[in-house]
C-alpha cells in the first residue's frame, strides 16, 4: 500500500454543522425584522444598524488582536449577531457616539472580559443595551414614530411606546380602559406600526424568524414557548383579578421587547441552559420577572433585566436540572 492512512477513534464522520452555520442562520432569521425596521424607521434605522454592526466587528477584532493577542475570530458571525441585536434594542434616532459606546460595552465588557465567545455569562447585546439605558435614559427612551420610508434621522418626530403610555397613565391615576383606547390596535402592534426600538416593533417578522430557526433546528422551542406562555398566564391571572389595573396577555406579549427577547435574546446559546428541563425553568423565570418588573417595577419595560437576571442563574440551573438519564426512574 503506497498511501498513508489516518487512524483516529470513532466517529469517523461529522454532521457538517458549524458555529458559522448556526450564527448566520440566526442572522438570516433576523432579516425580516431588520428589513421591516428599515421600512418603518427609514434612514435612521439603517444608520443605527450599520454603526452598531461595524463597531461590534471593530471592537471584537481590535480587542482580540491587540489586547488579548489571539487570532481574531470575527468570521464566526457572533459579532454580527451582537451588532444587529444591539441595534434592535435602540431607538432609530440614537446618536452615533452613543451607539459606539454601546458596542464597546457589549463586546468589551459583555463578551471579551470573560474570554470571548462561549465563556460570557451575560448576553453581550443586553449588557450594552442596559448600560446605555442607565447612562443615557433620555436618548434611549425617545423613540421616533414608525412612519414608513422615513428619511429623517436625529430630528424625527417621537412617540411614546405602548408600555410607557400605560405605565405613566396608571401612575397618574388614569383608568386602564381609557389608556387602552389611546393605544394602537393589537393588529398594528403585531405588524409593527407602533413606537419602539428597531427590532421590537414587528411581532410578525420576529415570529417568522422563530419559525425559521425551529425548522432549521438552530434553537429548540423550549425557551421562547416557556417565556411567552408564562407571560400570558401570569398577566392573564393579574388581568382577571383586576381588569382596571392590569393589562391582559395580548398586550403584554405584543408590546415592548417581549417577542424580540423571547425569540432572539434569551435563546442565545452561550448564556442559556443546556438541558431542555433547564431551558424551561429559565424561560419561566424570564416570563415571571418580565411581568413583575413591568407591572410592579419603576421601568415600563422589563424583558432585558429579566433575561440578564436569569443569565446569572444559568450555571445553577445547569447543575440542578440534569437531563433525564436513560434508565433512570421518573420521580
Amino acid at each position, binding site marked *: 500500500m503506497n498511501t498513508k492512512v489516518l487512524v483516529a477513534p470513532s*466517529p469517523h464522520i461529522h454532521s457538517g454543522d458549524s458555529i458559522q452555520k448556526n450564527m448566520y442562520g440566526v442572522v438570516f432569521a433576523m432579516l425580516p425584522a431588520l428589513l421591516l425596521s428599515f421600512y418603518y424607521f427609514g434612514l435612521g434605522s439603517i444608520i443605527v444598524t450599520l454603526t452598531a454592526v461595524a463597531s461590534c466587528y471593530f471592537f471584537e477584532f481590535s480587542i482580540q488582536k491587540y489586547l488579548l493577542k489571539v487570532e481574531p475570530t470575527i468570521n464566526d458571525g457572533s459579532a454580527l449577531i451582537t451588532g444587529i441585536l444591539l441595534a434592535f434594542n435602540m431607538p432609530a434616532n440614537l446618536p452615533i457616539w452613543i451607539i459606539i459606546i454601546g458596542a464597546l460595552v457589549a463586546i468589551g465588557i459583555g463578551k471579551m472580559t470573560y474570554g470571548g465567545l462561549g465563556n460570557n455569562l451575560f448576553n453581550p447585546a443586553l449588557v450594552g443595551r442596559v448600560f446605555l439605558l442607565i447612562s443615557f435614559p433620555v436618548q434611549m427612551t425617545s423613540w421616533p414614530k414608525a412612519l414608513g420610508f422615513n428619511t429623517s434621522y436625529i430630528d424625527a418626530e417621537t412617540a411614546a411606546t405602548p408600555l410607557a403610555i400605560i405605565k405613566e397613565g396608571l401612575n397618574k391615576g388614569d383608568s386602564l380602559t381609557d389608556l387602552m383606547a389611546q393605544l394602537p390596535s393589537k393588529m398594528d402592534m403585531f405588524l409593527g406600526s407602533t413606537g419602539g426600538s428597531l427590532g421590537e416593533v414587528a411581532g410578525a417578522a420576529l415570529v417568522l424568524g422563530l419559525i425559521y430557526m425551529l425548522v432549521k433546528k438552530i434553537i429548540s422551542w423550549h425557551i421562547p414557548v416557556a417565556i411567552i406562555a408564562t407571560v400570558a398566564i401570569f398577566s392573564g391571572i393579574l388581568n382577571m383579578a383586576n381588569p382596571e389595573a392590569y393589562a391582559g396577555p395580548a398586550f403584554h406579549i405584543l408590546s415592548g421587547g417581549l417577542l424580540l427577547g423571547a425569540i432572539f435574546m434569551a435563546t442565545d446559546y452561550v448564556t442559556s441552559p443546556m*438541558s431542555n428541563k433547564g431551558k424551561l425553568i429559565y424561560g419561566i423565570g424570564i416570563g415571571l420577572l418580565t411581568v413583575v418588573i413591568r407591572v410592579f417595577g419603576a421601568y415600563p419595560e422589563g424583558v432585558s433585566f429579566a433575561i440578564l437576571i436569569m443569565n446569572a442563574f444559568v450555571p445553577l440551573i445547569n447543575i440542578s436540572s440534569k437531563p433525564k438519564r436513560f434508565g433512570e426512574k421518573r420521580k
Partner: protein
Amino acid sequence: MLKTFSIGGIHPEGNKLSAKSAIQELPIPKIATIPIAQHIGAPAKAIVKKGDEVKVGQLIAKASGFVSANIHSSVSGTVFKIDDVMDATGFRRTAIIIKVDGDEWLETIDRSKDLVTEITQTKEEIIKNIGEAGIVGLGGATFPAHVKLSLPPGKVADVLIINAVECEPYLTSDHRVMLEKADEIMVGIQILMKAIDVKRAIIGIESNKPDAIAHMTQISSKYPGIEICPLKTQYPQGGEKQLIAATIKREIPSGALPIEVGAVVQNVGSAFAVYEAIQKNKPLFERVATVTGKSLKNPSNWKFRVGTPVNDIIEASGGLPEDTAKIIAGGPMMGKALVSVDVPLTKGSSGLLLLAEEETARKDIKACIRCGKCVSVCPMGLEPYLLMVLAEKKNYERLESDSVMDCIECGSCSFTCPANRPLLDYIRLGKGKVGQILRARK
C-alpha cells in the same frame, strides 16, 4: 407513527450504496490468518500446532473460560505457523496461520441448500451447540452468543428481540442477509426462542429498508410468535438499550443487562449463524460483510472466510480508491480505523468502509458555544460537554456521579458538535479511568 427510542438520536445520511448488490462469495484466500481473539472475553487456546493438517470447520482453538468462544478453521490446509500478527485493533495478537490447500470440509457439516425447519434439539443441547459452534454477536460487539443465552439463575425472559436495525450508515450486510436468507433466519429465531424459553420474538428493522420489512413480514407469517417491528430510522437504534426501548418501551436501568427487563437481544446475522450451527452442524467460520465507500468502484456484499486479508475483499470490490484516507472496520460511527490492509477479517467484520479525506478529516476545534446540541442528541441522557470538561480536568468523582459509565460510545455528540469538539475522545479517556477506579474499589 413508527416506533423509535425517545431520548436523543441523530440522522446521519444513510449512504447505503451496496443495498442492491446481492451477496457474492469471496474466493478462498491462499493463506488464512485466524486470530484466537475474535470476541469479547478471554482469547481461545490454540489446539493445533505447526504442521497439522486441518479441514474446513475443524476446531483449532478452544474457548478458555466462560466468556470466550471456540475458533474453527475456515479453510483446509496445513498450519504454517502460530504467531503474533497485527489484527484490526492495531495490536499484535496471536493468530493461527494456515496455508490453504483445496477446500475440504468436515463430513459432519451438511452442505446442502435444503431448508431444515424441524427443531429436534433440546434447550440445553441448543445452548451447548451454539457455544461449540463459536457463535458471537455478529453486529460488531462479538459477545459470545451462548453466554447471552444462558440466563442467570432466577431471571426469566419473556421476549427475544432480533437486532436487524443496521443503523450504521453505509453497512448493508444484515439487509442483504434478510432479503436472501429470510427462512433460515426465521428458523434460527425459533431455535433461539426455544433456547431462552420465550413465545414471542420481535425483529426490529428500520424504515430505510422497506424491501426487507416487506419480505420478512411475508416470510414471518409462516412462523408463529415472530413479529416484525418497523422502526423510524434513527441512529443509534441498533444499540441494545435503544432497541429494547424502541420495540417494547422498557428502559434497562444503569449498569444492568437486558434480562433485567425480561429481554434477550441477538443480531439477525447471529440468528442465521445459529440456524447453520444447529440445523446444518456448521460452525461459524464465514459471514457476510459490506465493502463500501463513495469512491469505491463496486460497493458490494461478500460472504468471506474468517482469516481472509482485508486487502482481498477490497481488491474484489474494485481495488483501493486513490483518495482513501481512512480504512474502517465497521461503520463510520462506531467502526475502528485500520492501520493497514494486511490485517485479517474476523467474525466481527460487518463491513469495511473506505473514506476520502474530505469526508473523514477532523476540522479545527473551536470553543464550546454551549448550544446544548450534544445534550439533546445523547441517547443515554448524558451531558457530553460537561463530561469532556470533567475528563480534561481529571475530575473522576464527578465523572462517575454524572454517569460517564453509561456512555455507549455511539459518537452522536462528536458527530453533532458545531464546534468540532472531540467529545467522545475525552469521554472515552474519562470512562477508562473511572472504570479502573471502580474495579479497584471492588
